[in-house]
């Protein structure tokens, strides 16, 4: 059936089965491969996108249920990797294999949109649904704090990075 969505600011109409999850519409119909398939049952968060601003597991959301919705994927977070989270992720080398990171970034972006300077507890609450099999969690937490600081600097607040709970090193 026909579904009309706004995806990364662009209006698209697709003709898909009624139960086809948004994930597979994004990946295989719209060829937006950034959003990942991990579990298919909303357990891992790799498929996280924003639906009307809310972090949403696209693997269990039929596209028909998103009729008319505003959908933002990793490809729409910024055109050029300039979002504070994308900058922080590169600066801190957050990823290992990188597979979960689109979902991590989208969950984190939704968090920062409503809580610009999150505490560790805020981060845990927002991010605990996103699995990272490589266990890059220490840097994900650090990356969110760093992005908050970058955003604050960009907004003229001039605050430095708050330290997250993180691994130390002698290197």
């Amino acid at each position: 059936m026909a579904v009309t969505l706004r995806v990364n600011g662009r209006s698209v109409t697709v003709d898909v089965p009624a139960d086809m999850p948004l994930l597979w519409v994004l990946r295989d119909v719209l060829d937006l491969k950034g959003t990942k398939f991990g579990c298919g049952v909303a357990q891992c968060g790799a498929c996280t996108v924003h639906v009307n601003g809310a972090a949403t597991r696209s693997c269990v959301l039929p596209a028909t249920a998103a009729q008319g919705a505003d959908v933002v994927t990793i490809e729409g977070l910024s055109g050029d990797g300039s979002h504070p989270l994308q900058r922080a992720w590169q600066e801190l080398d957050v990823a290992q294999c990188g597979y979960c990171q689109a979902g991590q970034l989208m969950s984190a972006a939704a968090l920062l949109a409503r809580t610009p300077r999150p505490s560790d507890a805020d981060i845990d609450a927002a991010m605990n649904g996103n699995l990272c099999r490589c266990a890059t969690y220490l840097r994900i937490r650090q990356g969110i704090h760093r992005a908050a600081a970058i955003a604050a600097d960009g907004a003229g607040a001039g605050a430095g990075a708050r330290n997250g709970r993180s691994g130390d090193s002698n290197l």
Partner: protein
Amino acid sequence: MDTTVQVSRRRFLHVSAIVGGGLVFGFRIGSPESLAAADLLGGTTTADFVPNAFIRMMPDGIVTIMAQNPEIGQGVKTMLPMIIADELDVDWKDVRVEQAPLDTTKYTGQFAGGSNATPSHWMPMRRAGAAARSMLVAAAAQQWNVPVSQCTTASGVVHHRASNRRLPYRDLLDRAATIPAPDPATVPLKDPGEFRIIGTRVPNVDNPAIVTGKPLFGIDLTMPGMLHAVFEKCPVFGGKVASANLDEVRAQPGVRHAFVVEGGTALNGLLGGVAIVADTWWAARTARQRLRVTWDEGPTVQQSSAGFASQAEALSRQAPQRTLRGDGDVAAALGGAANVVEAAYHYPFLAHAPLEPQNCTAHYRDGKLEIWAPSQTPQSGRQLVARTLEMDESDITINLMRMGGGFGRRLYNDYMVEVAWIAKQIGVPVKLVWTREDDMQHDFYRPAGWHYLRGGVDAAGRIVGWQNHFVSFGEGDRFASSAAISPSEFPARFLANFSLGASVMSFGVPTGALRAPGSNGIAFVTQSFIDELAHSAGKDPVQFRLDLLGGAQEGAAFNADRMRGVLELVAERSGWGRQRHPRGTGMGVAFHFSHRGYFAEVAQVTVSPDGALKIDKVWVAGDVGRQIINPLNAEHNVQGGVLDGIAEALSQEITIERGRTVQSNFHDFRLMRMTEAMPVEVHFRITDFDPTGLGEPALPPAIPAVTNAIFAATGKRIRTLPISKTDLSWS
């Protein structure tokens, strides 16, 4: 055009001189492979300099370096090119990294496993960079008519100090192509003090693509006309299709093909099942919901985890089927011991569960097969495909795709041979994507193991005897894959009286290597039992281990001084023994040698009276030789390895019932989540040994460090994993 081709050919003739038939570069003079290398590198123009299979330099100053090994998140796609670039003496900002395809004519050791990339490729990558550098220096010296020995390089520029002349590499490419190439074995290498990239914190080269969601992984591949496949196998390993409602499946929307794959009997080959191919993956998956298969489940339907456990228990009451090692007289030593400790340890089957489900893409046409494979062992995969499809390996091309985790799962190429078979049937490009449930239920599991131990200490608190009856899986005198123990496994050759025996059960569960195979279970057993003996002797667990290491004999499996070094370092950095903890909080220590790496770790845990476990922190000291190539990534591998081991220990278990895997997804096979990740402090002890790998050796000691800390905190000894099986409450 003709001119271009001739020049390219001439360049490759020069390249061939570098090789001298050696394995480092692997070019053959004037061979089709060498010309294919030009294609691989994007086609040469008259202005490019392609000194070997790893490097292409262009007049705009950009240096393209081929990353030869599969990338699973271990950072090898960044690390190996760093080594080449440093010896080439160019700036990292001018380097572009490309993934090489499988090509055994040009590259050796194109696999990801065993923490092998560093020890195998450290010197060859240095020589590849240095050989190209020496040709550029010779070109400059020739142009200036000065001795090579008076020329130096830095940041992609040759400098002649006496005349203060400089030439950037990009202006030397044509002349460098005419320079006879040096013998890689004798080409001058940098003094380590001159490294400018090696030893610096270099971020992952794929970061920009990762954070912007660019197609990067195997599962992201797409091409015109590509169809999508799912493959249903018998839930009992090795079972075959008796019948299936294929007509009904074929009638489902979007379905193009549905057919039975007969398959073989080898659990690591192509197994029987039903392939469904459709216009979209969702259509294939939806049609699969309608699939009804009658399976011929075969004899292994009888097997279960509970059955294995009771067999192991029965075997433990008999003498070991085989003696793997017997030093001294353990029975007499234990007879005379002041304290004897007896303990049975067990660890379960585990899945790998990389976050990217197994997938692979293939296109068969005109008798040739091209595969886009997220595989840790593409060469073995090609062999398997060739054997199964009765093709020549030379007709199969394999492109390497970045992988969303490996952990050993993608050492096995079952998904590759499945898609290859399907592709040959349908003749158009096809991508096979497994569901998470397929992945969880058709893994090559870390084998479960049982260890029945007796050990004794004398009145002075020294270990006088150690005996282990290891019960595992296998047939006769052969262990199943990754189910073995080495006769030299620690503490062999550290104790005068030591015996190791083994008994095996036959079975039909596919098993395989999981990150730090063998070690990921054995270290838990060995380092926990050492802890039991330390406590029975009333000794400090660190000092007790230092004393044990002091007993190293000829033939010990590792260098005891290096292990003592990391043990002392981690004790110091963790503040071991310097503070008294309240009941419910404790520290545990463990060490392990694997994959040429020495690791000692301390964990601090807090257990609430009602049994809630919190791991407060882990300290790590590692020794992998004289050079940490990329400290940033090294730290990530160590932290990730520690957290991976702890995740396994906390709650992971695969159980087998009625011949099939019970767990199916992340709700019943739990990965670590953010709230469980504790700080991991990493220290490296630099020693003058050749550098070795970091993907695995940090993992094994993390588990017993935690379980020993639980004992220190609560007095509860964890002898069975996962920890979640034990009630940790105390009062």
